[in-house]
């Protein structure tokens, strides 16, 4: 079946603008995760959803970042008033459930460049 998809694949925006990133998880996966990966760096956890609720928002860098998930499926990550330090690859992953056997399947990412 289809894997995790993300859109857009690339986004260039001007400092101060808002951006919205989309993630379509694998069908039937109840858990969804957002990560940020700066150039040459590891994975920075942002937020995860179990169904439509977000039990762990601890990784969101500031109040400019927000995320929602509707219908237990698609999720959007919104960054308001973007800053140059927001430039990174934003990765989404989904897993069948949140728990001990939560193999995560990653999407291709959205490469965000803030000018």
């Amino acid at each position, binding site marked *: 079946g289809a894997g995790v998809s993300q859109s857009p694949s690339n986004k260039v925006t001007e400092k101060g603008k808002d951006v919205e990133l989309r993630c379509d998880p694998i069908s039937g996966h109840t858990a969804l995760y957002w*990560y940020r990966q700066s150039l040459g760096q590891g994975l920075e956890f942002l937020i995860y959803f179990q169904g439509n609720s977000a039990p762990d928002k601890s990784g969101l860098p500031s109040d400019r970042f927000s995320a929602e998930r509707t219908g237990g499926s698609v999720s959007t990550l919104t960054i308001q008033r973007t800053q140059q330090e927001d430039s990174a690859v934003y990765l989404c*992953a989904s897993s069948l459930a949140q728990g001990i056997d*939560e193999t*995560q399947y990653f999407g291709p990412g959205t490469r965000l460049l803030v000018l």
Partner: protein
Amino acid sequence: GQQVMQIPQYQHVQEGEDFTTYCNSSTTLSNIQWYKQRPGGHPVFLIQLVKSGEVKKQKRLTFQFGEAKKNSSLHITATQTTDVGTYFCAGFDYKLSFGAGTTVTVRA
């Protein structure tokens, strides 16, 4: 809170040589997973270890989970250019936490 650390951060290997990358957790883990990210790609699941002292092999890759379930290692034998990429470990305690990764480059 839970922290997962990987060493080394970078590993430059001569083709044909062996190397090992290590993963250490500040807490006891329920399981540990390994992922590989090719340059320009996204992380892809490789394997999961659950039992204390567990050893699993995938061709030239050997994964080990420590007896105390707080550390793990990935050993690659006879390194090939296809092994290039970043290898992440991810430890599950109450949630999955990723290490910073070991980025492997290979010189022919």
